[in-house]
C-alpha cells in the first residue's frame, strides 16, 4: 500500500509539470463554466414563469462525458512512456509489485482528476446560496460519488491499456475507441434483440451514471459495474507489465 501511495504521489505531482494535463483541466473547466452559465440563464428565465431552481447535476454529467474523450490523454503515457524511456526497468527492479506500480499510476491519475472535480464543487455552493431553501445536497453527493466511480473505471482501463503499448498514441486511440464503444455503442443491440438485450444495456458506461447516481439513486448494480471495470483495468495493467518481463 505504501508503494502505491509513493508512486501515486509522484504521478500526481508529475501532472502539474505536464502542459497536456493543464490543457485537459482547462478544457473541462471552461466548458463546464459555459454550461453552468447557460443553466443559470435558462432557469432564471423559467423562474419568472414559475419554474424550479437550477440543478447542478447536469454539470457533472458533462464532466463525465468530457472524460470519455479527455481521460485517454491523461492515462496514455502512464506506463507506455516508462517503457519507451526505459525507466520501466527502474520500476521493475525496485522492490515494487507489478500491481502496486499499476495501481499507483491509476491512483495518481484519479487524484488529479478529482482535484479538477473538486473545483467544480463551487457550482452547487453558488446555487445553494441563491436558492431558498437551498439545494438537495444528497443528490449532489450521489452525483459526485457516481462521478468518482466513472472516473475510477475510465482511468483504470486507460492505465491498463497504457501498459500494453510502448507507443503512447497507440494507447490513446485504443483507449478512446474503447470508451466510445462503451459509452455510445454497446447498448445499441439492445434495441434490436427480442430478448436478452438488457445485458447490453447493463454494459453501457453512460446509463449507470446518467440514469441513476446522477439522479440521486444509488444501486448496488451500478457500484458493482464501475468497481468491476476498475478491477479489470488494473488487472489488465498488471498482467501486461508481467508479460513485458517475459518478452
Amino acid at each position, binding site marked *: 500500500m505504501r508503494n502505491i501511495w509513493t508512486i501515486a504521489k*509522484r504521478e500526481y505531482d*508529475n501532472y502539474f509539470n505536464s502542459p497536456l494535463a493543464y490543457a485537459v483541466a482547462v478544457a473541462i473547466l471552461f466548458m463546464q463554466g459555459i454550461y453552468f452559465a447557460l443553466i443559470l440563464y435558462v432557469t432564471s428565465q423559467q423562474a419568472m414563469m414559475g419554474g424550479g431552481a437550477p440543478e447542478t447535476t447536469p454539470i457533472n454529467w458533462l464532466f463525465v462525458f468530457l472524460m470519455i474523450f479527455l481521460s485517454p490523454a491523461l492515462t496514455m503515457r502512464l506506463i507506455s512512456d516508462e517503457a519507451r524511456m*526505459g525507466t520501466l*526497468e*527502474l520500476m521493475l*527492479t*525496485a*522492490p515494487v509489485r507489478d500491481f502496486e506500480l499499476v495501481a499507483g499510476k491509476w491512483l495518481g491519475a484519479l487524484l488529479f482528476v478529482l482535484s479538477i472535480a473538486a473545483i467544480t464543487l463551487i457550482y452547487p455552493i453558488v446555487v445553494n446560496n441563491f436558492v431558498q431553501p437551498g439545494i438537495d445536497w444528497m443528490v449532489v453527493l450521489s452525483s459526485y460519488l457516481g462521478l468518482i466511480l466513472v472516473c475510477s473505471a475510465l482511468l483504470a482501463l486507460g492505465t491498463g491499456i497504457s501498459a500494453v503499448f510502448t507507443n503512447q498514441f497507440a494507447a490513446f486511440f485504443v483507449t478512446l475507441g474503447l470508451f466510445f464503444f462503451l459509452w455510445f455503442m454497446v447498448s445499441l443491440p439492445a434495441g434490436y434483440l427480442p430478448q436478452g438485450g438488457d445485458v447490453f444495456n447493463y454494459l453501457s458506461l453512460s446509463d449507470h451514471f446518467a440514469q441513476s447516481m446522477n439522479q440521486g439513486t444509488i444501486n448496488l448494480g451500478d457500484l458493482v459495474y464501475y468497481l468491476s471495470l476498475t478491477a479489470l483495468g488494473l488487472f489488465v495493467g498488471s498482467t501486461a507489465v508481467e508479460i513485458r518481463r*517475459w518478452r
Partner: protein
Amino acid sequence: MIKVSGLTKDYGARRAINNVSFDAQQGEIVGFLGPNGAGKTTTMRILTGYMPPTDGEALVAGYDVVEESLEVRKRVGYLPETVPLYTDMVVFDYLKFMGELRHIPNVDDRVDEVLDMVGLMDRSDGYIGNLSKGMRQRVGLAQALLHRPEVLILDEPTIGLDPGQVVEVRELIREIGKERTVLLSTHLLNEAQNICDRVLIINNGKIITEDTTENLQARLLGGERVILRVRGEADELAKTIKQVKGVQSVESKEDGAVEFEFASGKDVRPEVAKQVIKAGYDLLELRPIGMSLEEIFLELTGDSKKK
C-alpha cells in the same frame, strides 16, 4: 552472495545466454567482460529480477531471483546500462522517490549522503534533464547505492564519464567492494584489470573463462616477460641475454629494447642484469610486462590470429 547455475535465456529463437554458471562472494568485485551483445546485460537483468530466465537458477543474497524476486530486489542496487531516469524530475526528488520505494528511514539525509558520495551535491536541485551524460551516470549510481545494498550490479558503470570521473567512480566501486559484492560489466579490458578481483570472460552467451586477473595472465603465458633497455646500440644484447640460464625466449624489438621470457618462479633478472653490465652496456630499464587483458581476450575468444 551471487550463485548462478545453468542460466539460459532465449529471446524468441535467439539464445542470448547459454548455460551460464558462476558465483561471487561477499567483499568481491567480479568483472563481466565481453564484447557488445555477449550477454552481459541479459545476465544482469535476470539477476536484478527484471526478467526471468528461460532455464537455470540464480540466487542473489540467498534468494531465488524468480521465486523470491521482491526479496532479491530489496537487496540489490542496480545501475542499468542506459541509465534510465525521469528527466522531468529534480535530482533530489528523484532519489527521494526511489528511496521511499525502498522504505529507507530518514530518506532526506540518506539522499544527501549519497549525493555527496558521487559528487553531485551542488546539482541536487537541478533537473535531471539538464545534466550531462556523466552526471546522469552518477545519479544512476547514487540511486543504486541509496539503500546500502548487499549486492551491487553495475552495467558499464564508467561509460560516458570523463577521465577524472572514471578514476573517482572506480575508486568508489573499489571502496564499496570491500564489504559488499559487486558485479560489474565492461567491455574495457583495462577497467576490469583495474578494479576487479576476478574476471568472467563472456562471449556469445557463454562464459569462456573465469579467474583472477593475475592468474589469467600466468595461465596464458606460462611464464613472465621482461623488457630490457640499454643506452646506445645493442646489436649483441639479445645474444648476451640468451646465454643466461633460465631464459626461455628472447626477442629484439624495433626500438632497440629486448624482451625476454622466463618460467614463473625462476627469476633470472639479477643474473641477466649482471651479464648485461659485464658485457659493457649501460642498463637503463629492466621491467616486467604483463599480458594485457586485451591480448588474453583475443587469445581466448579466438577472434584474432594476427598476433
